[in-house]
């Protein structure tokens, strides 16, 4: 359990390096640092000297039908060896096909074929990296007629079969629940507690017909409520605030991370739902979170 952190963004590099603000941990976008040298790596050296980090990727394209790129995995492994993140995560999605990259997080059909495909690839990645990874649920704007199960059944099955962790993005659940008219509470209640290692919290924008995962607004009340529900169910899980556009002063990010801390503290004192009690008790005992973290650091 790393605690409550924020995504490290360029706008705050100097502030973080020069003032060393109070913060439990930072998450960094892996691809921003998979470079030969220069300012990004210099910044990461400075940040890592004072804080734990986790590496979060956007281009592994675990759901693509293109072969995984050996060069990408090598770079990711080398970066991890150098900076020793608590864990490495990426998205349950595809980002390109046919050797082309869309630089976007596209959803998969929730099918047995996709499960087999993604599980095999996660195993390949975990073998290459020598550690388990986390997969994150994405916000989506389209769903497929071919799907034969819910998103939470899909991600749960993959996590179980690939033996990987889950980075549960609470905002993404809220966005996709609106866009596809499913029950966000049902999602939170169904995800296997022992797999959830990290949360993402972020803002989105409302386009009337759909919500867009823009990371350019404060976390909304409904997402905080979902987070509270997750906190009750999953126990102590590291939480991370993402903000990628219209990025505010660092202090506001820190306040948002503190709010996550406070909500968890309150939720931990609140009696749990009876129906969840047994699983909740289990989740704090054997969530796999500390174990997974330890494995990652090993």
């Amino acid at each position, binding site marked *: 359990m790393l605690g409550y952190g924020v995504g490290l963004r360029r706008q705050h590099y100097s502030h973080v390096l020069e003032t060393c603000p109070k913060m439990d941990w930072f998450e960094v976008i892996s691809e921003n640092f998979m470079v030969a*040298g220069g300012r990004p790596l210099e910044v990461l050296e400075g940040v890592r000297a004072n804080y734990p980090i986790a590496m979060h990727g956007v281009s592994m394209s675990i759901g693509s*039908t293109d072969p995984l790129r050996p060069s990408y995995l090598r770079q990711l492994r080398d970066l991890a060896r150098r900076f020793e993140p608590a864990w490495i995560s990426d998205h349950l999605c595809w980002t390109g096909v046919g050797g082309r990259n869309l630089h976007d997080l596209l959803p998969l059909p929730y099918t047995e074929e996709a499960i087999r495909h993604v599980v095999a690839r996660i195993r390949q990645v975990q073998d290459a990296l020598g550690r388990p990874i986390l997969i994150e649920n994405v916000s989506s704007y*389209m769903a497929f007629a071919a799907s034969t199960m819910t998103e939470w059944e899909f991600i749960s099955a993959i996590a179980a079969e690939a033996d990987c962790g889950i980075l549960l993005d609470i905002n993404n659940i809220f966005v996709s629940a609106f866009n596809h008219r499913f029950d966000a509470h049902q999602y939170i209640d169904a995800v296997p507690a022992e797999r959830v290692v990290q949360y993402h919290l972020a803002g989105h924008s409302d386009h009337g*017909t759909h919500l867009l995962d823009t990371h350019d607004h404060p976390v909304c009340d409904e997402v905080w409520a979902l987070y509270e529900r997750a906190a009750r169910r999953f126990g102590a899980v590291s939480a991370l605030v993402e903000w990628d556009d219209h990025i505010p002063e660092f202090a506001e990010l820190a306040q948002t991370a503190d709010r996550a801390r406070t909500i968890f503290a309150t939720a931990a004192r609140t009696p749990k739902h009876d129906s969840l009690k047994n699983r909740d008790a289990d989740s704090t005992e054997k969530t796999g979170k500390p174990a997974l973290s330890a494995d990652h650091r090993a």
Partner: protein
Amino acid sequence: MPTRLKKLESLLYRLITAPSGVAEGIAAERDLGPGGGLDAIVLGDDRLSAEARVDIYADMYFYRLLDALKEDFPATLAVLGDSDNFHNLVTGYLLEYPPTEPSISCCGRYLAVYLRDHPAREDAPFIADLARLERAIVEVFLGPDAAALEADSLHALAPADWPAIKLRLQPSAQILALQWRVSELLRAVEEQRPWKPAEQGAVKVLVWRRNARVFYRDLEEAEAAALEAVSRGAAFAKICEIVAADDHTQDPVAAMNRMLARWLSDGLLMGG
């Protein structure tokens, strides 16, 4: 091979990147046909049709890359104008050079090449060279690290050793051979001053990094020739010969000393 998944991903890729939009992309798909065949694949509802849902991804694809290219090519953007011109440039560029690399910082790798034969050159004939310099700045910013050569380590050399020593440029440094003098234009844009069109004239531009900051400057002929010799691995004696042979050099020894002192203070040479 998950054939159904591959077919789905390939179809969505084609629709998202269709040159004239998703609707025309759908029309061009023989398997889908005009009768709303996409609805059999992507679920639509009363709020958003299947096509509108794919359209969201098409918009995000284009505008994410447009924003990335605006950030990496601020002077090219300033010259073309933040309007249809740059938008249309990017539309055409992405069709010819769609992104293939995991990092979005690679998306502008071929913009200067694309601009070589682009109609934008009619009004701004220097535009390809300008884009080349801007791209070099991105590459140098992310290029490999190496410790800088310290003046003290040269001072310690015995005089007899000087002719044979081989200086080395920082591995991230680049020397560009351009046909237009675009450095001043770029500097004006960076400093938010009014810019003037670049003048025609062959010039070598040095782009390098010191303490994580990228710098660039036009090189005089003698210095360009000397640095190119350094990058080819020439011995110091050969570099001195090159400087001495330059018609514009009055005092070769003083010129070489000035150059070497500047290279050292700029952190341009690699130590170790």
